[in-house]
């Protein structure tokens, strides 16, 4: 069943967090296909975000591989295994450590199929906790942004448990490399902060379903202005949109869900209706996916706009540790709200 939206399911009303939804997806896919295996640091005990908690017991150390601290090594190893037909998932403790394997991903993983003229395929999923969470500059990167421009990868940034499960299963069944980036404040793992919003826990059907890669989702309908946001920023944006609704402003909130492929049409459709566009992302303002979206709208739909395209993003600095500074840098509800109100004045 390919679906986009949680349908009302009378039989069950399970509320899960994202990490629970992902773990369920992983377990189902590992049962379904014995070529699937997962590897990463300390995943024997669950990994950093408890993505693999309990999996060792069911699937054993042959399919739940605890690695040394060797990111380039085990990424390369997973590429080789995928070329030979296995379906690896790499669990990163923090997505931030993937940069020590950057060459393997950019030069090998993303290109081998193309430069071999289609001789190989690399079904490989990267599970990547992304974004800032109070740990200073080296543990706060918006990983998805750094890989955004590299052809040959797919990039997913789910924000709800329903989407996370359905997209993860699609990612696992896809025959291409997929970076699956979940914000550190969205997993809902034990002991970790969980974003406060109406969608951070949610209904996940008992029945199997897939959410297709590359299709965005309108998380809230609205008529006055289009706001595009993903990951943690989607939660903050929805909170703002819900508050503004009460104040009489109707904000449409679009969740791209995937950055590559990106559902630009969905945004254009929305902009055609609202004539106003705000793009919210957590990463630095320079070079993010938001700039690409703005550029595409400026080239394909500029005529529908009644106002400049507004972007809300982190300023071009690393993420500082001090909690007051981190909150100053990462877009918050106040900033999103003012951007919307400012744009409405045009």
């Amino acid at each position, binding site marked *: 069943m390919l679906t986009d939206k949680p349908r009302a399911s009378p039989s069950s009303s399970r509320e899960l967090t994202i990490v629970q939804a992902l773990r369920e997806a992983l377990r189902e896919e590992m049962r379904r296909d014995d070529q699937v295996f997962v590897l990463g640091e300390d995943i024997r005990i669950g990994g950093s975000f408890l993505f693999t908690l309990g999996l060792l017991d069911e699937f054993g150390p042959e399919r739940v591989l605890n690695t040394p601290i060797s990111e380039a090594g085990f990424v390369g190893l997973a590429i080789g295994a995928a070329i030979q037909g296995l379906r690896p998932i790499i669990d990163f403790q923090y997505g931030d450590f993937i940069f020590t394997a950057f060459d393997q991903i950019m030069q090998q993983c993303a290109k081998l199929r193309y430069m071999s003229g289609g001789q190989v395929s690399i079904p490989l999923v990267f599970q990547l906790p992304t974004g800032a969470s109070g740990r200073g500059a080296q543990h706060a990167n918006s990983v998805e942004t750094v890989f955004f421009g590299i052809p040959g990868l797919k990039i997913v940034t789910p924000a709800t448990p329903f989407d996370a499960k359905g997209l993860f299963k699609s990612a696992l069944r896809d025959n291409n490399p997929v970076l699956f980036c979940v914000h550190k404040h969205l997993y809902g793992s034990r002991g970790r902060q969980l974003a406060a919003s109406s969608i951070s826990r949610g209904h996940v059907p008992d029945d199997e379903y897939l959410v297709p890669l590359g299709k965005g989702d309108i998380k809230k309908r609205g008529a006055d202005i289009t706001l595009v946001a993903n990951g943690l920023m989607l939660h903050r944006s929805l909170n703002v949109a819900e508050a503004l609704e009460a104040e009489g402003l109707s904000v449409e909130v679009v969740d791209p869900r995937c950055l590559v492929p990106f559902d630009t049409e969905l945004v254009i459709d929305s902009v055609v209706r609202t004539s106003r566009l705000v793009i919210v992302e957590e990463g630095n303002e320079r070079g993010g996916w938001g700039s690409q979206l703005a550029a595409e709208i400026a080239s394909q739909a500029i005529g529908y706009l009644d106002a400049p395209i507004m972007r809300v993003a982190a300023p071009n600095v690393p993420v500082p*540790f001090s909690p007051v500074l981190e909150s100053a840098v990462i877009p918050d509800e106040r900033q999103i709200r003012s951007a919307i109100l400012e744009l409405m004045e045009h």
Partner: protein
Amino acid sequence: MQELSIRLPQIPDAAPLEPYEADLLREMYRRMVLIRQFELKVNELFLQGIMPGTIHLSLGQEATVVGACLALDADDVITLTHRGHGQALAKGVSADALMAELFGKETGCCRGKGGSLHVGDMSVGALPAIAIVGASSPIAAGMAFAFKRRQTSQVALNFFGEGTANKGDWHEALNLAALWNLPVVYLCENNLYGVSTHITEAMAIDYVSERAAAYGMPGSTIYGNDPIIVYEAVKSAADRARAGDGPALIECLTYRRGGHKRDDPGTYRPQEEVEAWFKTDPIPAFRDRLLRDDRFAASAIEDLQAAVMAAIDASVDYALASEAPAITSALEHLYVD
């Protein structure tokens, strides 16, 4: 799972303290106690929910970091790891500035921009910590390169864990350091685990020091819970480096008295191993040796301990009383003019 017991501690006989000056021994003890109490306080502040961020405590590894840093000169430099509080205090970073940094205050050693994972103070030769495993190893070589080029006779010391020896950056660094004969000491804090992963699950050899030969560098494995043993090993490696004879790799066997970080109970460690290693606590062992030495009265030791406690309490007061950085500082310190 491989056999873990090959790594039960073997405690060498304690060397006599006579050859060492009382000041040195006292400072060794003082810094070890300072680190221990600092870390216990930090842990407490976390449990109280007062302290932000995350922490990796160095409880149990005090002898290694103190022995190593006291063997260095004041103008030698160290690089620190994610487990950096002990390394910082051992090299002389002020407890006040360190505590304030953990609270993200403007008075912190990195003005609140770094946090626990990036503590350091260049004025005492402690490069603000690099939390990416392995990444500091070539940077230490680079600082040593500058010392060599300028013929300053300074030395750089790179702290790293045994889990780090499987990273490519580490490998490239050791090769370059040996090839170019750089004045750098590679100091492994082998606490047997990288997070939950035992060394036998991460490499198919027994000791990290076996890798030194692959670069043409001397390597040794020593007991890391005796600060004198560590001091001697680092001193001679540093002397050798200063004399132009190049780098060395020293592996210190030690143990974490807790989990990998704050929220890790460390239950993956076998009980037998934990118990055996906990008996090797470097601090009471060293105190006992001091007390057996005429130069140290029990009361003096107690005074020293009390002074440390007071200093730590003062550091908390200092940190709490300090201002948070101005919001505008988020945009500062990116580029230098």
